[in-house]
């Protein structure tokens, strides 16, 4: 699976995951994803191009979200497709890591302040 880290916009870093987030996919990105969670403060994880999510992928997301929170940071999940959203809901992950489909709301959830115009 692919992991693309975009240039931070303020304190928010957007990371785009692409492909299958199963055992093989999670193993591929685990180290880099945890390193990112240990370095950044607000992480917007774009799941729109993840076409399969299994419990091994959820493990990666939760471990990173916990690491961020321990450092006073926060993670949100952005725009999962329908079946990936169902996995997040069925596993109770969406109550632990908020899921957003609107970019502005996602950014406000990460950094609740009025953006400069």
């Amino acid at each position: 699976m692919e992991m693309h880290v975009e240039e931070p916009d303020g304190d928010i870093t957007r990371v785009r995951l692409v492909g299958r987030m199963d055992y093989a996919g999670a193993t591929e990105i685990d180290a880099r994803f945890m390193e990112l969670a240990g370095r950044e403060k607000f992480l917007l994880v774009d799941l729109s191009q993840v076409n399969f999510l299994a419990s091994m992928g959820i493990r990666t997301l939760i471990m990173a979200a916990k690491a961020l929170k321990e450092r006073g940071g926060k993670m949100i999940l952005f725009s999962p497709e329908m079946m990936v959203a169902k996995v997040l809901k069925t596993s109770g992950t969406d109550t632990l890591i908020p899921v957003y489909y609107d970019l502005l709301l996602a950014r406000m959830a990460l950094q609740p302040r009025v953006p400069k115009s």
Partner: protein
Amino acid sequence: MQPRSDAGGETGEADSDRLVARNNLSELARVSEWVRRFALEHRFAREFAYGLELSVNEALTNIMSYAYRDDAQHAIVVELRAQPDRIRVEVKDDGVPFNPLELPVEEPPVSLEKSRPTGRGIPLMRGFMDELHYVRRDSRNVLTMVMHCART
């Protein structure tokens, strides 16, 4: 160990197919691909195909991670059967006796701090399949998962 098809496989369209996987997580990719091909051949709607692939993935992840106390190679047998109104999956392993259905249904954790990163496989199987059955037979764990569905 090579995948073994009793029926279907290359020619597709047979109502059942069987695969033997080793007890190694690296086998999951091959198993997933086999399930996807079966779903495609039998024209399952995406929702059902996804749930089937996910449930097989989670059942095997649990077996490969927890069922064996030795380092020996073991065979896990997965059988898929397409019926007009349902898909039936049978997973057989020779690991330690373990009935996943006896695990209590956990309340979802209320906070990230209190949550565990693991333990979501069985809730996912329960959520995506309509029936789960377990029996210990001939020194093997036999997990049967059924999904009620209509084909496209």
